[in-house]
C-alpha cells in the first residue's frame, strides 16, 4: 500500500518538533483524502515515547529506528536509514520540515531516489493533472503550491511520473491540530543495519551549542511588527513598550532583522515564521510580498505608515497615515484612557 509518510524531527528534549506535528496534521488530511494510511518515521535514540505521542495527530504507523548513532541528527546516518525505509515501503508522498534538518536530508533522498522535491510549500492538496504533451491525466496526485521568483508568482508544482512525491514545508505554515486524543496507532521497529557504521564515520560533531527557543511569536494573538521604516534599534524599543501595554508580541520584517533592529526569531514572512493573530499592527512596514505571505491571514490588520501608497495598506483594515514614532505614543494614550 502506498501511504503518506512524514519524516519527524526531534527537539533538543527528544520530543517531536512542532513542524513535524504540523506535517502530521496535514499528512492526515492527505491520507484521508487518498484513503491510505498516515505513517511517520522517527529516527533517533530512545524515541519510542516520542513516536507514541504522534497518535493523537492521526498517525496510523510510526516507524522507529532507535540507535545512538542517529542522535543528534547527522545527514548520512539518517539518509542511510530513511532511504532504505522509503525503498522498502514505497510511500506515495513523503513530507519534510523546511528546517536545517529537512532541507539537508530531503534533497539527498530525492537525488538518491531520482524523484521530485518541492521546497517551502505553502499549501498541499490532492488533485488531478492533465499533461498537455502526452495527453495523460494523472488523478489523485500531490499539488505542491509555493511562492516562486522572490514571491512574485505562486506556482503549482506536480511530479506526475516519479514516486514518492516529496515536499518540504516551513514551520508554522500548516496548523497543528489534534485529531483524536484516543487515536490508536502502532510502532513498527526498523532494524538499523551494519551499513550505518560507514555513514557514522563520515562526519563527526565536535561541539554543539543549541539554545532553547526563547522567543516564539507563532502563537501570539496580537502582534506589533516593525519594518525598516522604524529607523533604528532604539526606535524598536517603542514597539516593545506598545506590545507590553496591549499584551502583544513583537514581530519584524526581514529588512528590520537584517538591519539589526531585533532578533531573527521575530522575523515574519516567507523566510521567517507565518503568523495568524487576531490583530496585526504593522509599523513602518512597506509590505513586500515575502512579508505579506507570513501575515496576510491575520484577522485584522492596522498599518501605520508615512507612505499612503505602501503596498501593506492594500491589505490593511485600517491605515493610519503618519510616523509610527509619533502615532504609537498617541494611540497608547488613547488606549489607556478607553480602558478606564
Amino acid at each position, binding site marked *: 500500500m502506498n501511504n503518506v509518510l512524514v519524516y519527524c524531527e526531534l527537539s533538543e528534549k527528544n520530543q517531536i518538533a512542532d513542524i513535524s506535528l504540523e506535517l502530521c496534521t496535514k499528512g492526515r488530511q492527505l491520507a484521508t483524502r487518498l484513503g491510505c494510511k498516515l505513517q511517520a518515521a522517527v529516527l533517533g535514540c530512545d524515541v519510542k515515547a516520542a513516536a507514541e505521542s504522534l497518535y493523537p495527530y492521526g498517525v496510523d504507523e510510526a516507524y522507529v529506528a532507535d540507535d545512538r548513532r542517529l542522535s543528534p541528527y547527522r545527514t548520512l546516518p539518517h539518509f542511510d536509514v530513511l532511504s532504505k525505509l522509503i525503498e522498502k515501503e514505497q510511500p506515495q508522498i513523503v513530507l519534510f520540515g523546511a528546517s536545517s534538518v529537512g532541507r539537508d536530508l530531503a534533497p539527498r533522498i530525492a537525488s538518491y531516489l531520482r524523484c521530485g522535491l518541492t521546497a517551502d510549500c505553502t499549501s498541499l492538496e490532492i488533485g488531478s493533472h492533465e499533461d498537455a504533451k502526452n495527453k495523460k491525466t494523472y488523478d489523485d496526485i500531490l499539488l505542491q503550491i509555493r511562492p516562486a521568483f522572490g514571491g*512574485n508568482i505562486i506556482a503549482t508544482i506536480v511530479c506526475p511520473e516519479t514516486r514518492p512525491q516529496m515536499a518540504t514545508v516551513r514551520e508554522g505554515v500548516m496548523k497543528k491540530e489534534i485529531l483524536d486524543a484516543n487515536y490508536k496507532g502502532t510502532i513498527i521497529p526498523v532494524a538499523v543495519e551494519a551499513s550505518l557504521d560507514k555513514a557514522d564515520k563520515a562526519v563527526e560533531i565536535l561541539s554543539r551549542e543549541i539554545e532553547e527557543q526563547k522567543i516564539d511569536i507563532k502563537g501570539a494573538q496580537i502582534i506589533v511588527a516593525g519594518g525598516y521604516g522604524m529607523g533604528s534599534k532604539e526606535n524598536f524599543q517603542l514597539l516593545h513598550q506598545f506590545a507590553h501595554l496591549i499584551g502583544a508580541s513583537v514581530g519584524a520584517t526581514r529588512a528590520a532583522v537584517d538591519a539589526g533592529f531585533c532578533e531573527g526569531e521575530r522575523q515574519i514572512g516567507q523566510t521567517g515564521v507565518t503568523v495568524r493573530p487576531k490583530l496585526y499592527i504593522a509599523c513602518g512596514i512597506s509590505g513586500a510580498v515575502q512579508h505579506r505571505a507570513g501575515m496576510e491571514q491575520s484577522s485584522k490588520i492596522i498599518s501605520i505608515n508615512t507612505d499612503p501608497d505602501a503596498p501593506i495598506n492594500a491589505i490593511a483594515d485600517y491605515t493610519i497615515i503618519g510616523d509610527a514614532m509619533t502615532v504609537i505614543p498617541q494611540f497608547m494614550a488613547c488606549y489607556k484612557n478607553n480602558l478606564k
Partner: protein
Amino acid sequence: MAKQVPDTHNVGADAMNPDGTVNRAALPTVFNPEDLKALEMALRVKDQTDGASVTVVTMGPPRAAEIIKDAKSRGADDGFVLSDARFAGADTLATSYAISQAIKQLGHVDIIFGGRQAIDGDTAQVGPQVAEKLEIPQITYAEELMAIDDKSITIRRRLERGTEVVKAAMPVLVTVTSAGEDCRFPNAHRLIRQAKDEIRMINADSIDADMDRLGLKGSPTKVKKIENVVLAHKESVVLEPTEAALNELSATLIKEHIL
C-alpha cells in the same frame, strides 16, 4: 559551484509580463550572494593550503561567463560554464546531475563549495543532491571555516537555534549560508590580466551524461500552473493620526474584544 541569478530582491514593476510570465529582460543579473560567500570560503582554504587551486563551475546561458570572470578576478584559478540547450528547463535533480557529471570530469577534487541556495529559487537542493550523486558527505549551512588540513575540514554550521562544529574527511561538499564571510573584492591586476581570456563553454557531449537525465526531460517536477500575485484589496479605512480618530479606533477595537 556558482549561479548567475536574476536579482529578485530588486524586482521592478515591469518584472512580470501581463500574462504572468517572468520578464527576464527587465531583470538585472547578479552573482548569487551565497555563492560569493562560498567562493570566499574556498579562497580561504586556498590561502591556507599549499598547492590548492579553485575552479568555479556554473550552468546557464553563455552570459553566465560573467560570473566566472568575476570569480577569477577575485582569486579563482579557473572556471567554466555548462551551457547547452539540452540543459534547459532543468529542475534541481537534472541540474545536480549535470553539475556532478562535470565535476567528475575534473579529476581530483577535495572540497566542493557552493551557496546554500540561490535567490531565484531558494530551494537549497542542488548542494545535497550533488553530494549524493558523487557519493560524498555534505556539510550544509556552513558559516565559518574553523580548520583545514590536507585530509579534513572543520566547519561551524549555523542552525535555527544555535551552532554546531563538525569535522569531515575529504572529499566533502560544503554549502555556505549568508552568515559566511563577505567575499574579497576583485583585484584590478587580476581583472586586467584575464580581461581577454575566453571562458570555456562545456556542452552536454563532454560530460559523459545520460541525455535522458538532463534538462526538462530529466526533471521529475513539472510546473502545472503559475499565478501572478495579486493584492486582494480590502475595504481599508484610512485615518489621519488625530486624537479623535485614534481614540475612536482604540475604543472600537476594545469593544470588539480585539484589544
